[in-house]
C-alpha cells in the first residue's frame, strides 16, 4: 500500500484495532479536548479519510523536556501518535538514522512533501556568533530551521523555548536565543508554551489539526485558546481558600498541610494561562499546586525574569473568571490568527487556506 492513501483509520484497523475501540478513542480524545459527541463523530470521519502527515521535529537550544513530556501522553498514547496518526520522519531524539542519513530525510521531505508537512520545533535558535552556539550538521541551526520552515505547511512551537525564549533567553541572554517567530516570518505558528507543555495538550493540538483539518483557534499571543485561555488561578481547586483568605504562610505549616492557597509563598497561578489546574499532569495525577508548590508561571513569556518564584505577586488583575487572556491581554494590534485547513484529499495533504481573520471563531467543519 502506498503512503499516499494511508489513513489513520486504515492503519489502526489493519493493526487489529476494532471499530468499537476506534470510536472510543475518538470519544476520549474529543472529551480530552473538551468537545462533545458531535465533535467525536467529526473526528472519526476525519481520521478515516486522511493520510498520515509527515512531521519534522527539530531541536534547537533546549533541554528535551518537551520531547520527554510528549512521550508521557496517555490519550492518545505517544506510541499511537507516532505509529498511526502522524509520520514522525525526523526527530533527533528518537530517530534511528544519524549523520548524513538523517540529513537526507530533511531534503527529501522538503521535496516530496513541499507545503504538506508540519514543522515542530523544540528549543530555539541563538543568533550570536553567527548562529554557531547551536551547530547542526556543521551549520548554524537557525539556517536549517528557516529552510525547513520555508516548505512547511504550518509550524508548531513546542514549549517555552520555541514560543518565548525560555531559560537561555533569560537575562542577559548570552547566546541571543530568540523565539522561533523572530526568524520564521512566513508561516502560521502555533505556540504551545510551558516548560514543558502538558503531554495531553501537545498531543491534543496534533489530534485537533488532524481531526478538524485546520489550525486550532489561537489567541492574540498565538496560543490555542482551548488550552491557554484561562488562568491557573481561575480553575484552581484551592481557589476557595484564596477567596476565604486562608493562606499558607510558611512551608510545611498547618495551612500547607490543610491545602490552603499558596499565593503568599509566591504562586503565579493568578497570572499564568495554562491548563494545569484542569487537565493536570501525567494522566491527571496532580499539578504543581496540588503537590504543595506554587505555580512558577512556566507558560508565560519571560517568566524567568519576573522576580523570585517565591515573591508574592503584588498586582493581580481584578476581574472575574469569565475574562479570557485576550480580553485582558496585550493591546497588540494586528496580531494574526491564522487558520490553516488541512485538505482531506485522498492523494495529498495540502494547504488550502490561510485566513487572516482574527474574528473567525467556532467554525469547525
Amino acid at each position, binding site marked *: *500500500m502506498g*503512503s499516499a492513501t494511508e489513513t489513520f483509520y486504515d492503519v489502526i484497523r*489493519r*493493526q487489529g484495532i476494532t471499530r468499537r475501540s476506534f470510536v472510543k478513542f475518538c470519544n476520549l480524545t474529543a472529551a480530552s479536548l473538551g468537545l462533545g459527541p458531535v465533535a467525536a463523530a467529526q473526528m472519526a470521519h476525519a481520521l478515516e479519510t486522511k493520510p498520515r502527515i509527515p512531521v519534522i521535529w527539530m531541536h534547537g537550544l533546549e*533541554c*528535551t*523536556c518537551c520531547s*520527554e*513530556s510528549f512521550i508521557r501522553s496517555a490519550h492518545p498514547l*505517544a*506510541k499511537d501518535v*507516532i*505509529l498511526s496518526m*502522524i509520520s*514522525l*520522519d525526523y*526527530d*533527533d*531524539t*528518537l*530517530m*534511528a538514522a*544519524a*549523520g548524513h542519513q*538523517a*540529513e*537526507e530525510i530533511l531534503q527529501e521531505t522538503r521535496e516530496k512533501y513541499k507545503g504538506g508537512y508540519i514543522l515542530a520545533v523544540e528549543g530555539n535558535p541563538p543568533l*550570536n*556568533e*553567527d548562529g554557531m552556539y*547551536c*551547530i*547542526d550538521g556543521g*551549520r*548554524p541551526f537557525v539556517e536549517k530551521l528557516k529552510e525547513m520552515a520555508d516548505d512547511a505547511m504550518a509550524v508548531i512551537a513546542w514549549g517555552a523555548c520555541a514560543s518565548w525564549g525560555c*531559560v537561555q533567553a*533569560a*537575562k*542577559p541572554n*548570552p*547566546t541571543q536565543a530568540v523565539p522561533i517567530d523572530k526568524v520564521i516570518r512566513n508561516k502560521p505558528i502555533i505556540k504551545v508554551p510551558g*516548560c*514543558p507543555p502538558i503531554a495531553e495538550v501537545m498531543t491534543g493540538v496534533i489530534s485537533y489539526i488532524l481531526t478538524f483539518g485546520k489550525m486550532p483557534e489561537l489567541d492574540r499571543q498565538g496560543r490555542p485558546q482551548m488550552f491557554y485561555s484561562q488562568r491557573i488561578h481561575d480553575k484552581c*481547586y484551592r481557589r476557595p481558600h484564596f477567596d476565604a483568605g486562608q493562606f499558607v504562610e510558611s*512551608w*510545611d505549616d498547618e495551612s*500547607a*498541610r*490543610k*491545602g*490552603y492557597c499558596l499565593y503568599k509563598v509566591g504562586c503565579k497561578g493568578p497570572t499564568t494561562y495554562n491548563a494545569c489546574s484542569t487537565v493536570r*499532569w*501525567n494522566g491527571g495525577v*496532580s499539578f504543581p499546586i*496540588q*503537590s*504543595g*508548590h506554587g505555580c512558577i508561571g512556566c507558560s508565560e513569556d519571560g517568566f524567568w525574569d519576573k522576580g*523570585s*518564584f517565591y515573591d508574592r505577586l503584588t498586582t493581580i488583575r481584578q476581574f472575574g473568571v469569565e475574562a479570557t487572556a485576550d480580553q485582558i491581554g496585550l493591546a497588540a494590534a494586528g496580531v494574526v490568527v491564522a487558520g490553516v485547513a488541512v485538505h482531506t484529499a485522498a492523494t495529498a495533504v495540502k494547504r488550502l487556506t490561510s485566513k487572516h481573520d482574527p474574528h473567525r471563531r467556532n467554525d469547525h467543519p
Partner: protein
Amino acid sequence: MGIETPNGFKLDNAGRRIVVDPVTRIEGHMRVEVNVDADNIIRNAVSTGTMWRGIEVILKGRDPRDAWAFTERICGVCTGTHALTSVRAVENALGINIPENANSIRNIMQLTLQVHDHLVHFYHLHALDWVDVVSALSADPKATSALAQSISDWPLSSPGYFRDLQGRLKKFVDSGQLGPFKNGYWGHAAYKLPPEANLMAVAHYLEALDFQKEIVKIHTVYGGKNPHPNWLVGGVPSPINVDGVGAVGAINMERLNLVSSIIDQAIAFTEQVYLPDLKAIGSFYKDWLHGGGLSSTSVMSYGDIPEHANDYTDASLKLPRGVILNGKLDEIYPIDLANPDEVQEFVTHSWYKYPDETKGLHPWDGITEPHFELGPNARGTKTNIEALDEAAKYSFIKSPRWKGHAVEVGPLARYVIGYAQGKAEFKEPVDKLLTDLGLPLTALFSTLGRTAARALECQWAARQLRYFQDKLVANIKAGDLSTANTDKWTPDTWPKEAKGVGFTEAPRGALGHWIRIKDGKIDNYQAVVPTTWNGSPRDPQGNIGAFEAALLDTPMADPEKPLEILRTLHSFDPCLACSTHVMSEDGQDMATVTVR
C-alpha cells in the same frame, strides 16, 4: 601520524575521516569525527559538543532559592537531578539541614529518575543500535513466544501477541512511511540478533514506551509534574497530612498507595522485561566487546542516595563514592569536592578562553568566556564545518579532570567502584550476569558492560524505591510529618557571604554544582556534569576523554553507516545540554556579546 596520549591511547589521524553530525538519539547536539585505517578500524576519535546555552551566566545575581528551577532546565531528560544538586549546594552553603522525610522523598525522586532514565535510554535511545527492526518482520511468532517464555515470566508473551505485533509492524513498514525508523541501518552486518529476538525487543520497545509514563507519576505526586517537578531549599514542597482535616491535596494514604503501586510495577518491569532482554541481547553480542575506553583504568563516582538526612559521608551514601586510577581496583581514592586541587576544568581544546590555558580552574573559581574559532587544519568555513581540527579548540564542552586525570563516570563507573569496594549489592549481580553469559570480569570494561551496568542499576534503583517508600511510611507512622525546615528560609538569616557544593549521581554519572552566595544573591554558579567528564575534549597534556577513548580500535563494518560509533556513544547516554554548561567568574562579560 601516530602519537600516544599520556593516558595510554594510540591516536593516528592518517586514515579516512568519517563525520557523524548530528549524532541522534541523545539529548542535545553532538558531532563526532573519526579516522579509520585501511581495515576500517577507528584510529582517532574527535567528539564535539555543538551547543552552548550559558545558563550559569544567567544565574548570576538571582535568588539562590530559585537556582533549582534554572538548573533543572539544563536537562529535561535527567529531569530533577540538577534541581536536587542545586538545593544541596545551597543548603551546604547556608548550613541548612533537611528533615528525614524530605531525605526519603528526595531519594525516591532521584531513584524514580534513575529507573525512568535507564529504561527509556535502553529501549528508546540505545536499543536500535543492537536491534534490527526490519529483521523482526521475518520472525516466527511461535519461536518468539518460546524465546520470551524461556527467559521471563512476563505475561505478554503468547504467540498471538507477537503475531499481532508483527502484523502491526509489517503494515507500518509496508505503508512506506517509516517515521522514526526511516533511513536506519537495517540489515547492517553489525546486527547480530536472530529475527525472533528482534521481534521480542520491538515489542518491549513499545511496551516500555507505554510504561515509562507510569513511572514518572511518582514525580507528579511529590513534585506536581514531570518533566521538571518542583523542589524546595530546606526540604520538599509536598506536605504530609495522612488523616487530618484537608488531607486531600497533601501526601495522604491515597497518594502513598499510588506511589507504592507504581513501585511494584517498576520492579516487575525491570526484573521481568529489562534485565531478561539485556541478558538475551547480550548473549548474541558476546564477541563484540569493544568500547571499553577509560572504564578499565580510570573511573569516578561521587556517591548518592544518603541513608540518613544531611549525612553525605561515604558510609551514609548507598551509591559508591571514590576514584580508581590506572586500573588499580584495590586502591580507591577519596574525593573532596571543596579541594581546589581535585576537580578542575581546562579549556585548551574548548571554545572558551582562559588567561592561562595551561592551567585548570576549580569550579568555585571558574572563568568562562566563549571563544568560537576553528583551528588552522579545519576544513570548510566557520559556518559550514566539514572537518574539525582537534589540535586546536573543537568543542563547547570543557575538559574536567580529577587531579589531572581523565575519568569515566556513569553506571559502569559506579558498578566498578562498588565491585572494587566488595559491596555485595553491586558485586553479586555483576558476577551472576557475567557467569550466565559465560564472560570474564574483563568483559565488563566494554560498550556492552556499560549497557549491562545500567540495567543492573535500574533493578537496584527500583528495589531502593521500595526501601525508601517503606522508610517514609514508617517514619510517618512514628509520628514525624515534617517535610521542610524553614529556619533559614529568608535571606536575612544568611551570612553575608557563603559558598557550597552539592553533588548527586545523575543517571549519566557524577554531577556537582558549586555556588557562591553574596548579599543574598548568587555571585557565582558552576555545574560540572557527567557528559562534561565523559565527552570532554583533550586537555593540555593531551589526555583524551571517555567518549574518544571508547571509540578507538573499534572495527566498522561499513564506515558509511556508522552503527558501531552510535552504539558505543549511546552506551554513555550522552546529554549535551548538560555538558555544554558554562559559568563565568565575571558573568557581565557575557552580556556585552554583540546582539545582531
